[in-house]
């Protein structure tokens, strides 16, 4: 028995504290991340980025770089005339050919014998620019006569070589728009006794995965592409790379070494990946490209910065009447997943609480800023920040306790919202009550309010916020499925091949646990293979908190098929109906008595060697019973929804503006706890990530330039700053969930900033509607020196 077995103990594995299967390797420094892999004959690639924010490229001279000893290739857009665009809107060529729109923009790339030579070669490349006026904000982008970020159609050669317009010029700098409505805002206003309105401003933050981005590209002798990639969506990217490279997808194999953090950052293809592939193709050598930390800050995606105008109303009795929201998203120079975060934002705005009348409009605006990708929570942190501020403001306006107000408007199990979401299981009201009880929220809130003017410069505050997020996958593609192949060898060892990716969240451990639970096997007898598109079955990727739910159901399906097969054979051998038999503790047993009939390994071995020899191998594909949204954004996109309430307790030093997060009390509807250790880790890590979003992290972007591309100036939360964390799990046993579980990966990060904002108000009586709550911003707000965000006149 190894350490993991000992910790698991005996009996059912569900709800136990199961250590991660990959933890011993990781703690020993033996895990080989992409940075640790070197292939024979490998070259090292580096990218030359723009020295300008917005400029025409007049000429690029690579002659001196090419002449440097040890340099194998220097490429620019001119060398890859067949380049095709990447990204959600296909507005982005990996190597820029006509102009640069951001300092992250890729102009040239070098493959050389060493990183040092590649870097030296970059310095020898001469680029002649013609600077263009910079579009520094969404406001500037929308003002009359603003410079255009994408003023021309993007034309690239199509599959037949003829030019095709792949992205049309955006002559108003608008990249993408969304509009959702339910009911009639005018009717909602007419029914309102109280209306509040605010403008909220949410800032730039970035993922800061501890392992920087990297890729290794290699072509084999038959021109098949092998890509060592940190992607979170290997199967979708296989297809996208095929399109991008004009290749048959069958000739692309993606291998995922262990990933040093994802959090949504690896959901899109970024220019460095095709660039490494171009270099591998040209040099016929494996090419490795790894970022520096500075590059990671400058050239990886951000969370979507949002300016949001929100009006909300309620009756005197405390019933929500309407919510009207308009947002501007600074899209940056190119369109990635960040532009589509409105999908999630509108769910919170329309359906976290019952709102009969709702209107939501958003525009993603091109600028010369960094561009936003997907990031844990996917727009929900921003939407929740505003919605929960208004819940407190409305409650105060009509003079009702904020918890009571929330309970009055909270969703119940069985509800179908006007947006079409069906909350089959819903522990929202329990989340509210339990988080409030455990934190003594109501008493503390009143006491803090009473102490506001007691002369003590250090104020205490308590604030509450809740969230709704998909917890049963998200049907953003026509399919949201995952496949599993399961084989049991003649020693009763299981190999589970799953499409689901492990990004540190613990999916392989949870999947092994679910399989062991079905088959009556110890955890040590399951090996999970999850990192090779040539080996594992299809899946849509690790995102939307979907892996435990979707891949878990798929793994259970395969395990049940295997069990059925084994028990059917055992029924024949022992002359008993299969229904009376079971597998427990590595044996086939009589279900009723627990009497052991035969060891599982021995029985499976006998199947191999019997007359009708047979192996135990099964496959299962799970597609959740959710619906793709219609064109009006209505639909039940998830098979289950996760809920949570978090209460933040803080201290504000009014002399310095320093806000200390003392405690988070959370109550999370997780369906059911599968791995208690794993789920605690997800929640704690998410809370601290949310703390960073609220208090310390701020990617400072001025005139398109990231001013703090390092950990000294971009402040992640460190160990001494973490709050006390008290988390209750509400087990609603979702009917569709694996063993009743729902997805939980994103949930814990979502409420923190909103709860802290409400706590600051409770402490000081000052409502701050812009993040982050750095000492400077808070001090200014407390001393009437901070202008609240305003809506854009030109918009």
């Amino acid at each position, binding site marked *: 028995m190894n*350490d*993991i077995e000992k*910790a698991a103990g005996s009996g059912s594995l569900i709800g136990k*504290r199961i*250590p*991660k299967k*990959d*933890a*011993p*390797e*990781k*703690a*020993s*420094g*033996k*895990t*080989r*991340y992409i*940075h*640790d892999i070197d292939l024979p004959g490998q070259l090292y690639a580096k990218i030359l980025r723009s020295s300008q924010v917005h400029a025409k490229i007049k000429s690029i001279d690579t002659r001196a770089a090419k002449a440097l000893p040890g340099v194998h290739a220097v490429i620019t857009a001119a060398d890859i005339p067949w380049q095709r665009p990447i990204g959600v809107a296909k507005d982005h060529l990996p190597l820029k050919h006509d102009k640069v729109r951001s300092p992250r923009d890729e102009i040239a790339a070098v493959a050389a014998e060493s990183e*040092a030579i590649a870097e*030296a070669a970059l310095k020898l490349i001469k680029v002649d620019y013609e600077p263009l006026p910079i579009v520094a904000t969404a406001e500037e982008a929308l003002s009359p006569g603003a410079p255009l970020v994408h003023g021309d159609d993007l034309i690239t050669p199509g599959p037949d070589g003829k030019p095709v317009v792949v992205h049309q010029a955006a002559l108003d700098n608008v990249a993408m728009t969304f509009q959702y409505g339910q009911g009639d805002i005018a009717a909602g206003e007419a029914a309102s006794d109280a209306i509040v309105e605010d403008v909220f401003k949410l800032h730039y933050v970035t*993922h*800061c*995965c*501890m*392992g*920087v981005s990297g890729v290794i590209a290699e072509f084999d002798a038959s021109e098949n592409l092998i890509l060592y990639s940190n992607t979170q969506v290997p199967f979708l990217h296989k297809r996208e790379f095929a399109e991008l490279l004009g290749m048959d997808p069958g000739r692309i194999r993606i291998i995922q070494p*262990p*990933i*040093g*953090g*994802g*959090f949504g950052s690896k959901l899109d293809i970024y220019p460095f990946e095709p660039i490494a592939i171009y270099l591998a193709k040209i040099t016929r050598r494996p090419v490795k490209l790894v970022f*520096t*930390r500075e590059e990671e800050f400058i050239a990886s995606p951000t969370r979507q910065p949002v300016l949001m105008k929100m009006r909300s109303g309620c009756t005197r009795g405390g019933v929500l009447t309407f919510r009207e929201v308009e947002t501007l998203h600074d899209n940056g120079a190119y369109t990635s997943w960040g532009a589509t975060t409105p999908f999630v934002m509108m769910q919170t705005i329309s359906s976290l609480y019952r709102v009969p009348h709702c209107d939501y409009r958003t525009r993603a605006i091109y600028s010369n800023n960094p561009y936003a990708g997907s990031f844990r929570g996917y727009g929900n942190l921003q939407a929740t920040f505003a919605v929960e501020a208004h819940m407190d403001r409305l409650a105060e306006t009509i003079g009702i306790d904020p918890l009571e107000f929330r309970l009055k408007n909270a969703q119940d199990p069985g509800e179908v919202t006007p947006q079409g979401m069906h909350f089959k299981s819903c522990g929202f009201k329990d989340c509210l009550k339990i988080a409030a009880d455990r934190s003594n929220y109501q008493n503390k809130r009143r006491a803090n309010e009473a102490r506001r003017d007691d002369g003590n410069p250090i104020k205490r505050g308590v604030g509450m916020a809740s969230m709704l997020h998909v917890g049963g996958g998200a049907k953003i593609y026509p399919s949201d499925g995952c496949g599993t192949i399961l084989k049991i060898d003649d020693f009763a060892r299981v190999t589970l091949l799953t499409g689901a990716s492990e*990004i*540190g*969240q*613990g999916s392989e451990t949870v999947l092994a646990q679910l399989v062991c639970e079905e088959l009556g096997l110890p955890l040590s007898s399951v090996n999970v293979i999850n990192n090779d598109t040539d080996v594992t079955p299809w899946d849509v990727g690790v995102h939307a908190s979907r892996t435990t739910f979707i891949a878990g159901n798929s793994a259970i399906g395969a395990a049940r098929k295997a069990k059925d097969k084994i028990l059917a054979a055992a029924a024949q051998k022992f002359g008993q109906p299969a229904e009376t038999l079971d597998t427990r503790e590595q044996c086939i047993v009589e279900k009723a008595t627990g009497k052991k009939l035969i060891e599982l390994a021995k029985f499976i071995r006998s199947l191999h060697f019997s007359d009708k020899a047979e192996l135990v191998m099964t496959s299962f594909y799970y597609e959740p019973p959710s619906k793709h949204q219609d064109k009006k954004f209505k639909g039940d996109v998830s098979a289950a929804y996760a809920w949570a309430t978090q209460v933040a307790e803080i201290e504000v030093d009014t002399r310095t503006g320093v806000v200390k997060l003392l405690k988070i009390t959370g109550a999370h509807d997780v369906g059911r706890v599968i791995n208690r*250790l*794993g789920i*605690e*880790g997800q929640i*704690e*890590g*998410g*809370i*601290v*990530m949310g703390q960073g979003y609220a208090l310390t992290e701020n990617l400072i972007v001025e005139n398109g330039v990231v001013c703090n591309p*390092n*950990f*000294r100036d971009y402040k*992640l*939360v*460190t*160990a*001494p700053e*973490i709050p006390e*964390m008290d988390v209750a799990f509400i087990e609603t046993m979702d009917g569709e969930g694996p063993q009743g579980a729902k997805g939980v990966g994103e949930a814990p990060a979502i409420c923190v900033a909103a709860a802290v904002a409400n706590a600051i108000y409770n402490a000081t009586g000052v409502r701050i509607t812009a993040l982050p709550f750095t000492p400077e911003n808070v001090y200014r707000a407390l001393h009437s020196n901070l202008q609240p965000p305003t809506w854009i006149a030109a918009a």
Partner: protein
Amino acid sequence: MSANIDIAFTLNGVAVRASVPAHMSMLDMLRDELHLTGTKYGCGEGECGACTVNVDGLSVNSCLMFAVDCDGREVVTIEGLAGDAITEALKQAFVAYGAVQCGFCTPGFVMQARHMLRTRPNPNHDDIKRGIEGNLCRCTGYKKIIEAIAEAGLASNVENGP
């Protein structure tokens, strides 16, 4: 490109020689020249602690030390600690307490925690928080790392080492 400099030092208990450029960091030497990849690059400027190693009994960010300065010193990396009692206690506790998620920061935390436990056995949670404040983790929220180190401190029950 500067000329290489020959150095000799003890690495994980074994005498080694290396010829390194004057500007090379110890981190690059360990990873690229000596192929010890358990020491991680996280930032290259001493802010994240992923590259923590031990030099002459002191905990060091290997990205901030020149490789040539290893000359004559005793360097210990995560690879050299297999079998070390405190390290084994730490690794077991990191596993059992769920202190590992993506794991990229973990070797650095183990190195720093080992150094802490050698200089201060049985630390309380506040000691531990101070002791690891130079190590960044993006996944766990630190709580389980702190618990694991506290447990290892009890389990290893060690005396002050050299």
